[in-house]
């Protein structure tokens, strides 16, 4: 069985002198595929951001012509004034792109691909060709989704949650083909995710280097592993639901249309049964990578490694039984509401454990505030806000008031931007030297971090306040309502902050691109880390190591008394190190 891996690896070690096309485009090397996902998802991150800017213009300056808006076709913005139907498409596609085409592939497509083999000491994924397929299936999915903007009727406009019947019948939304493309694209993307997850799970179980026991795996790998399991089991639910929705739209079925017994709430149950594990798919890998970076920055082993692992598993499990908290006001049986509230409250516990363990890791450390570390600490700070604001919505009575208001918009952006995206900026900066062999510029990195941190908070924190005043989400023109008119200055403020937030991302883009050219050459281990990936050149050769590394230590042996330096790499053999002690750390 182990010989299998070697034979596969053998096979393409021979063909490494391949054409450019086979090496960089249709590559089966997990590192190249990871980088391909990086480019693709950063592109979608940019598109998603642009859509958000247009939304913010409309909310800050309702029904005023948008600067540059005249460049848009008449069907979107006649005279530069955004149409309500185009606004709904913006709302929908911003959410869809960010969740499915930016954050999820950035976390999973990029880092599961890049890190799993490198951190486990494997030469590649278990199924390299399947891995390539999963990228090349994701591309047409993105194209299908984007195509929505260019077809008659415009892009899908029923929200990223596509609640039926609005999404199921073109008579209600005015969007037919766009809505169908939305479903089709997600089914295709789902196939890509499932193939990816199959690959990651198999690789983690079967391809660990000798000595890489389960409890020597870095937390990034643990979280990516649990994420892959969630992806594997949750995505097919979405695929099934999207197919049924597609049939409602196209061939006249009535799964979610109430006329002849169909159930609109069934869509919500299916969507959120997928959707809540999805929420953890979007945060667990971030937590894992932040753990790696915080241990590195603090120069200390992770505080309570085992409970961190159990917390990841606990979140992965509890994530399946909380979906009803999205539906407290949906007309679902109120008794069920209470049940879902309790399970939702409980999921706060593993998150609290993780937060306190990160603090425990910083405690008495020797903290290096490098750029990835800044982002990781911002992750902790912001995730705390996002986590705590979740408690308000978990409380069923309070949720009556804040449900579907800007409070939830604030909450989800604190988790997805403040959480996942800060973690991603940190992770990209951290592993950039491994990917491209050059360091990103730390000065630009710090400028980008502080400005992003500032404008991010100025953009999203005031949204809590909008929500408290009852400001509904997804409305085109808040000034239509008497009780929202006094909030318009705040809306304008948020819009200006959002523009600045978007603008300062240019620093990241410049840093990312320029460092590729003229960044400082990276040594194999520029951050003085303990992970296996830092024991091979930057960037690693095809096959990753000339010889399979052997693992001798737990993942985060920083400041170990066994060695002079303040880091002990997992594969460094030290005389006198107790063989078993390293894997049992308590």
């Amino acid at each position, binding site marked *: 069985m182990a010989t299998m*891996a070697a034979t596969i690896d053998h096979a393409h*070690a021979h063909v490494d002198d391949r054409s450019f096309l086979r090496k960089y485009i249709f590559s089966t090397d997990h590192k190249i595929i990871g980088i391909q996902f990086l480019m693709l998802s950063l592109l979608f991150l940019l598109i998603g951001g642009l859509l958000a800017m247009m939304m913010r213009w409309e909310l800050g300056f309702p029904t005023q012509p948008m600067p540059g808006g005249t460049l848009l076709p008449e069907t979107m913005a006649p005279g530069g004034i955004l149409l309500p139907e185009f606004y709904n498409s913006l709302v929908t596609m911003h959410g869809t792109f960010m969740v499915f085409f930016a954050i999820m592939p950035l976390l999973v497509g990029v880092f599961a691909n890049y890190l799993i083999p490198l951190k486990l000491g494997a030469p590649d994924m278990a*199924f390299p060709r399947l891995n390539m397929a999963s990228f090349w299936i994701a591309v047409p999915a993105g194209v299908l989704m984007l195509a929505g903007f260019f077809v008659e009727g415009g892009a899908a406009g029923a929200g990223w949650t596509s609640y039926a019947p609005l999404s199921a019948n073109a008579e209600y939304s005015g969007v037919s083909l766009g809505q169908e493309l939305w479903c089709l694209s997600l089914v295709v993307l789902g196939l890509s995710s499932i193939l990816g997850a199959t*690959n990651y799970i198999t690789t983690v179980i079967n391809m660990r280097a000798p000595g890489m026991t389960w409890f020597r795996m870095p937390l990034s790998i643990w979280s990516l592993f649990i994420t892959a399991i969630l992806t594997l089991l949750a995505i097919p639910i979405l695929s099934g639901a999207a197919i049924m929705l597609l049939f409602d739209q196209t061939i006249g079925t009535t799964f979610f249309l109430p006329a002849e017994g169909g159930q609109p709430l069934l869509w919500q149950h299916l969507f959120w049964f997928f959707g809540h594990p999805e929420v953890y798919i979007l945060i667990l890998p971030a937590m894992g990578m932040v753990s790696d970076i915080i241990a590195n920055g603090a120069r200390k082993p992770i505080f309570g490694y085992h409970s961190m692992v159990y917390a990841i598993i606990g979140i992965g499990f509890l994530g399946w039984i909380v979906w009803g908290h999205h539906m407290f006001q949906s007309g679902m049986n109120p008794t069920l509401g209470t049940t879902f509230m309790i399970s939702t409250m409980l999921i706060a516990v593993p998150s609290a454990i993780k937060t306190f363990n990160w603090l425990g890791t910083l405690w008495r450390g020797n903290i290096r505030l490098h750029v990835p570390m800044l982002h990781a600490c911002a992750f902790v700070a912001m995730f705390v806000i996002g986590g705590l604001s979740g408690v308000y919505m978990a409380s069923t009575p309070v949720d009556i008031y804040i449900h579907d208001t800007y409070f939830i918009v604030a909450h989800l952006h604190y988790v997805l931007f403040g959480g996942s995206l800060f973690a991603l900026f940190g992770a990209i900066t951290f592993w950039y030297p491994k990917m491209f062999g050059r360091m990103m510029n730390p000065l630009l990195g710090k400028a980008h971090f502080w400005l992003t941190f500032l404008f991010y908070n100025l953009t999203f924190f005031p949204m809590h306040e909008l929500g408290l005043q009852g400001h509904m989400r997804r409305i085109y023109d808040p000034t239509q309502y008497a009780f929202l008119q006094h909030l318009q200055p705040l809306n304008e403020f948020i819009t200006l902050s959002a523009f600045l937030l978007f603008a300062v991302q240019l620093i990241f883009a410049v840093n990312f691109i320029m460092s590729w050219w003229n960044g400082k050459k990276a040594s194999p281990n520029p951050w003085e880390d303990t992970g296996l990936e830092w024991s091979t050149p930057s960037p690693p050769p095809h096959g990753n190591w*000339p010889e399979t590394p052997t693992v001798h230590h737990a993942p985060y042996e920083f400041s170990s008394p066994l060695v002079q330096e303040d880091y002990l790499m997992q594969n460094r053999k030290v005389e006198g190190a107790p063989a078993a002690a390293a894997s049992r750390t308590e």
Partner: protein
Amino acid sequence: MAHAAVMRPPAPAEPGAGVYNAKLGMWVFLGSEVMFFTALIGSYIILRFGNEQYWAQPAQILNVPITAFNTFWLICSSVTMVKAFAAAQDGNQKALRGWLVATVVIGAMFVGIQAYEYAQLIHLGFLPSGYRAGSELAEAAAAGTPYHGSALPASVSLYGATFYTMTGFHGFHVTMGVICMAFVTWKAFRGSYTATDHRGVEVIGLYWHFVDLVWIILFTIVYLI
């Protein structure tokens, strides 16, 4: 550097699942398939419980005898698959090829019979969207006359939707299985499988048995209950 990997000794990995990658991968993938059919079957159960009045009696619209025969066929193909695997283990190339061909043929016949069944149902007027206007079924339902025993439901749109979605996606899985099985058979004819290494046969067999099992569940809940 590029060729360094060539020199690598066989990777002495940590003990994993104790099975080779492709087999583990198939098990993992089937986990995903289970969830896909769970979504379809779960929706079916919820929709049906809320709307018994929109469901026809078993065998009222659906052709149960022909499908029962088809079910029997598909179970037979699981047997031929087991035989093929046993032959592969014994290194009996001739038997392996024979049983694989039998499995491909039966699988293809299953799909063919299902297509025939669909054609018949559509002809009758049973569509994923319910009755076809002006069809035999639609007229019987509108008139309230007994049809194969009792009156037809006023609408069968959910019945049709769930029926075609579930059996259709199962048929799609069988079709995919037949294509992959044909590929494995082609490889078997080229002598790719030996008594010591016949992973392809084992892995496609896992998928085949899974698809079979799903059918037995679907046949029970869609046709018999």
